[in-house]
């Protein structure tokens, strides 16, 4: 590997690595559809007897797209931290995906405002009656946790999370753009240096964000591995989403000869690896709780095995693990961008099912059967529309490849063996 005489390949910053202008109309349509769908979802959801379903469904879709951007936010610093060579050509796409944390912060207000206003339709712990010893609804565990689970601290933490994420995303992105202009190697060194801190901060914030927004939906339940579980799903969905993005770009004839079969192969390996990792973490969490059989913990799984949720659980076992695991196992499939993208889309669907399985059984405390209705559709189309539209907005007029990265030629010459 080290021995091949590498000719220095360069990429010229021209139309071939810019977004197709046709996407601008997609951006506008996505934006319009997104806003309308969200308004429709709110219209239906908030006029219902209980707005609980809407908020849970909104949270599912919100976390779904957030997790893709968080995966990207993990990928970029890790790329620098490990001095990775192969991934230079796809790094810009990840950087752009991580920029979407900014619109996600705005979309989070839909969840944050009701909490601040004292609503406890989504987060049961926000009900002051549960903390009050005198109240008939007094809940000792929620009262115990009220030092952590209260609307003020929740808000402060959310601000810290988003501030950290946006800072990291902007820092890496802006420096990377700067390098496109001057090709300064020092920038790479600087980003390498800060990447370790970024990864540490990422690990902590993502863990607690997943505790706050997903685990605390059932304020009695707890699992130390939950942050890792959420991270595994995020990273997996990110790799799947990036594969789809690059496939779409290449369909426009962009990045031809830059992203090759070899890069798809590597993306496929990561998809495969994180499928396995997700399965490992999910199984570990389940096995330990199932085996020890402690009531505080098993309740969470019990709720997800009754009222028809067992079907979703089995769907996840096969759809989120076994099928993609065997599907992406072969190197011939990983090297075929059409099949790989197909699997990526499948995994993205399954990632939604995964989050749905985490969030939705909390509606009506697990007494409702799983259902997928207009509200869910509107939420996912709404947030998805805004997500895509903002992604296109960020990508417009930017080179989609870090053209002057010092390791670009290594990435272009990638060979799997």
């Amino acid at each position, binding site marked *: 590997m080290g021995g091949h005489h590498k000719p220095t390949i360069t990429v010229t910053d021209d139309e071939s690595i810019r977004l197709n202008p046709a996407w601008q109309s997609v951006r506008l349509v996505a934006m319009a559809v997104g806003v309308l769908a969200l308004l429709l979802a709110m219209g239906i959801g908030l006029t219902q007897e209980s707005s609980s379903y809407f908020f849970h469904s909104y949270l599912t879709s919100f976390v779904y797209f957030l997790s893709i951007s968080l995966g990207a936010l993990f990928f970029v610093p890790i790329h620098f931290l490990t001095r990775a060579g192969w991934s230079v050509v796809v790094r810009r796409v990840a950087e752009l995906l991580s920029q979407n944390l900014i619109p996600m912060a705005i979309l989070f207000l839909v969840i944050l405002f009701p909490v601040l206003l004292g609503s406890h339709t989504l987060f049961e712990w926000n009900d002051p009656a549960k903390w009050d010893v005198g109240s008939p609804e007094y809940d000792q565990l929620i009262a115990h946790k009220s030092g952590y689970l209260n609307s003020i601290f929740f808000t402060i933490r959310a601000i810290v999370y988003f501030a950290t994420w946006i800072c990291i995303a902007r820092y890496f992105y802006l420096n990377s753009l700067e390098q496109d202009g001057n090709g300064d190697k020092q920038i790479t060194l600087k980003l390498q240096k800060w990447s370790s801190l970024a990864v540490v901060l990422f690990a902590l914030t993502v863990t607690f964000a997943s*505790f706050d927004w997903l685990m605390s939906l059932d304020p009695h339940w707890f699992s*130390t591995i939950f942050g890792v579980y959420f991270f595994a799903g995020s990273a997996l969905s990110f790799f799947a989403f990036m594969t789809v993005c690059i496939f779409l770009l290449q369909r426009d004839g962009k990045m031809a000869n830059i992203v090759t079969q070899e890069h798809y192969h590597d993306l496929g390996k990561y998809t495969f690896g994180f499928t*396995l990792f997700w399965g490992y973490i999910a199984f*570990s969490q389940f096995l*330990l709780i199932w085996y*020890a059989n*402690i009531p505080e913990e098993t309740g969470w799984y019990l709720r997800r095995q009754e009222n028809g949720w067992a079907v979703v659980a089995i769907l996840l076992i096969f759809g989120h693990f076994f099928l993609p695991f065997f599907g992406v196992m072969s190197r011939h499939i990983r090297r075929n961008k059409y099949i790989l993208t197909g699997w990526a889309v499948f995994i993205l669907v399954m990632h939604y099912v995964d989050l749905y399985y985490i969030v939705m059984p909390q509606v009506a405390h697990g007494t409702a059967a799983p259902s997928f209705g207009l509200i869910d559709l509107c939420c996912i189309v709404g947030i998805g529309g805004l997500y895509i539209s903002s992604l296109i907005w960020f990508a417009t007029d930017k080179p989609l490849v870090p053209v002057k990265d*010092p390791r670009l030629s290594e990435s272009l010459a990638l060979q799997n063996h």
Partner: protein
Amino acid sequence: MATVNEVIDTTIDDPGNRTPLVIGGHDYGSITRLVCGINESKTPIAWYIGMLMSLSLLGMLGGLVGYLIFTGVGVWGNNNPVYWGFPIVNFVFWVGIGHAGTLISAILFIFRQNWRTSINRFAEAMTIFAVVCAGLFPGIHIGRVWVFYWLFPLPSLQLAMWPQFRSPLLWDVFAVSTYATVSLIFWYTGMIPDLATLRDRTDNKILRIVYSVLSLGWTGSARAWSRYEKAYTLFAALAAPLVLSVHTIVSFDFAVSQLPGWHTTIFPPYFVAGAVFSGFGMVLTLMVPARQWFGLKDVVTLRHLENVCKILLATGSMVGYAYAMEFFIAWYGGNMYEGFAFINRAFGPYWWAYWIMVSCNVISPQLFWFKVCRTTPWLMFVISIFVNIGMWFERFVITVTSLARDFLPSSWGMFEPTWVDYGMLIGSFGLFFTLFLLFVRFGPIVAMAEVKSVMPHPHSPVHDDPQAAADHA
């Protein structure tokens, strides 16, 4: 030829160029001579001294095992309520150390980390020997060693029963024995080409026969290499999840129970990170002096050591993350027993063990944030010793504090290790180092073929020939 001794600081990062993995102007032949020279040279006195010390410790271990078998497991400090004392602590400690080798040769291979080639053989050997040490403890803890086969999925004739597959301890037997088997054949497969090199170089008739048999008639045929490389990739793909599973299952031994401090879902990845951490700690402990003594500084450069340090920093931080999560959830979960277990760890009767663990495992690797610590061999050697100590104490803290203080205060008790406990811990190092010294004397301690494959190709007359160059293009 290693005559030109360029001084290259391999730790300087140049994003445009990859740092060479082998320095000192080596070519293929000189690598062979450098590595085989270790086996072919006259046995140094230091080796005999080391071997003598290791053998005496091994002898002590053998004596203690005999004493244990003839007297019974009462010679240990294990008691009620601390049923699991030093033996399981030592077992988990050694299994953890045994994670580095396979991790390096499998996971770093998958991630195309070519620097692994210089240290993987060494680390794999260490893995095997650590697993041997680990396997000793479950073997002897059963008291009646002659029925050790009950550990395996065979019907026990006396009981007319099969092992009970719902027990995590049985999963452990499967995990550790699979891991030992796979590591062994992976290690051996990797050694076949190098054993062939030793075979083709030696003049000693007996050694030649031994190396011939061990290298199975390897010729280096391109067709054989093609299958060999595929096999290596497959091994890596199999060993990577295996290495995760082994310590995961060891963690199940604890985590499927309901004991406060044992039952927590982070255990599987936490144990794996801890195992990698301790394994790399031991790699560093052995590698720093070994590269000095065997003159391997050109192959195992400072950059290699720096990378190991970075992995230590990363895994040490993961372990710290797990400690923090355990503590947070112990409070957040609102379970009073769980909360007590963690307070008790930090401030209870075993507070000293806890704080040794935290300072060695979480705080000491943080020194690797500083480049000077990552590039000063003696300093990293010292830190690696701390890591080894800390990881032993981690297992001690988990095992003993939770058992000594569980739900009922009336059944609390303290654990007092006996001299046999201490002797066996020390003796297990004798076993480890005896095997290790034998290996460095008679086996290829650097994967020569792999190192050669990551060296730049030398200048070829083909490139001077315009006709050939045109053909090639």
